[in-house]
């Protein structure tokens, strides 16, 4: 601090409190709405103070959902989301650390060519090639399966780049020493590279988990069987299912449950999260 400013700093606090309020408000409203009985939403303005129905609403959401409208209970969707997010995360991490290892520690024909193939995935998000990707997955018989939900999303250029970048900073001597001691490439990878990469793996895990959990368009396309609905896409079915107004108390309970796991991950692993975010994007 260069000069002391009593009133200025008060003003700064005021702006920040307002900012936090803007950021927190939508979730606050959702939590409040999820504690009210359905009747509250029929007239007047939405409530801003907690209501009496919290336990009942969450129980209904978790065990029944909107079964009449063909949506599965939330507990099933949460499980599906967890499986999909973990499969995507672990898949991405393992295939990209292996390919980064190959690219940095070996010299072989077509190395640059493979690097460019991986790089291309950066330029082709699912959103821009929706129809043909769907056709490929349909032809492979992977609709309505966890394999179809996760495998097409696990190629990752960013993770490969990050691992490559990190491997380049590891001193040459490490590998030379390992070779002198007679360690082969896989032993070097397992006993030296993996332990050194733990922080990077953890940071990427946080980012990838959030990415996987929040997938929307892909599950929407390839799941027609409610048994495979994930929670983030399931919310849309709850909002638009039927002509009537959405059942706000259940929708908001679902919203809270859907947002909770990734938010908890960020809150508990904030340092890793910021590291993962700022390093993958550089």
């Amino acid at each position, binding site marked *: 601090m260069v000069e002391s400013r009593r009133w*200025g700093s008060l003003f700064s606090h005021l*702006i*920040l409190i307002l*900012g*936090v309020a*803007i950021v927190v408000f*939508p*979730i606050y*409203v959702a939590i409040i709405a999820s504690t009210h009985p359905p009747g509250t939403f029929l007239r*007047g*303005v*939405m409530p801003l103070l907690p209501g009496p129905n919290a336990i009942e609403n969450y129980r209904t959401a978790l065990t029944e959902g909107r079964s009449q409208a063909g949506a599965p209970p939330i507990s099933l969707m949460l499980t599906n989301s967890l499986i999909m997010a973990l499969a995507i995360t672990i898949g991405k991490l393992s*295939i990209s650390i292996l*390919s980064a290892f*190959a690219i*940095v*520690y*070996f010299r072989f024909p077509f190395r640059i060519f493979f*690097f460019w*193939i991986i790089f*291309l*995935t950066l330029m*082709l*998000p699912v*959103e*821009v*090639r929706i*129809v043909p990707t769907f*056709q*490929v*997955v349909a032809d*492979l018989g992977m609709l309505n399966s966890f394999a179809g939900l996760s495998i*097409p999303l*696990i*190629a990752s250029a960013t993770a*490969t780049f990050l691992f490559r970048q990190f491997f*380049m900073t590891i001193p*040459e001597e490490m*590998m*030379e020493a390992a*070779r002198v001691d007679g360690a082969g490439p896989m032993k*070097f990878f397992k006993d030296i590279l993996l332990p050194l990469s733990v922080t990077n793996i953890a940071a990427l895990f946080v980012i990838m988990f*959030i990415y996987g959990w*929040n997938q*929307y*368009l892909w599950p929407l396309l390839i799941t027609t069987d409610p048994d495979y609905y994930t929670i*983030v896409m399931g*919310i*849309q079915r709850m909002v*638009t299912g039927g002509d009537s*107004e959405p059942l706000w108390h259940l*929708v908001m309970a679902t*919203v809270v449950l*859907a*947002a909770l796991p990734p*938010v908890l991950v*960020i*809150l508990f692993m*904030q340092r890793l*999260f910021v590291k993962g975010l700022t390093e993958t994007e550089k």
Partner: protein
Amino acid sequence: MQTKRSTFQNSWLPYALLAPQVIITLIFFIWPASQALYQSVLRQDAFGLRTTFVGFENFKRLFADPLYLSSMQVTLVFAVGTTLLSMGLALLFAVKVNDMLRSRNAYSTMLVWPYAVAPAIAGVLWWFIFNPSIGILPYILDMVGYDWNHRSSSTDAMILVIVAAAWKQISYNFIFFLAGLQSVPHSLIEAAAIDGASRTKRFWTIVFPLLSPITFFLMVVNIVYAMFDTFGIIHATTEGGPAQATNILVYKVYRDGFVGLNLGSSAAQSVILMGIVIVLTVIQFRYIERRVNY
């Protein structure tokens, strides 16, 4: 591209290590992308029985189609609005948080978590807040005499999706601005203060120019986000309406391909979007290279 100075010798192992990544990329990225290219020059008849080669006809039709042109315009307004709103607020918060000593971490934690909220959920949250019959904001707006209705008013619908998209992105921009602010050398600011520059002047003549690489980077990232990652917001709330007012390009590809089953046109739109992503990615990477070099 570099490797290590000394490398392992093995004729098959590197290929085996690369295989999973490369196979997935080929099957789920390269192949569909080339299919999109291929289908963009074809047209199917109404029953999907006959396919004919039509050259650039699909593209010509797109650029003559007022619906597509209006979708481009909608995307532009949406992307610029989202980027300005979320970057502006994020910069303001980051500057203020950076001034704090004891409360810095507490404020940061409160500001970063919306990153974890899926775009679709962000959309539903704001949709609820803006709900014309029970939402709190229309209630307040009504008191000042504004009749909010995003189901009939195009402007209202656009504001709704921009607010939802920007809200979710504030935390991302905040993290990068804060990291940038923390790397501004203190000595520069102190020197300017000794020379009598006011806080405002110090910010605009020293801090902001030093932040310009990060600002540029964030602009590209935010435009990519608004163009491609906000599908969920549109799909879960306005569904492109009212009257196409929020029908962004990505949503239109989906609608034309899956609902309208117009494969040729949808593929041509995919190809145009790929072109846009490639340009944006190249800009982003050129910027990274430049920054590494100085």
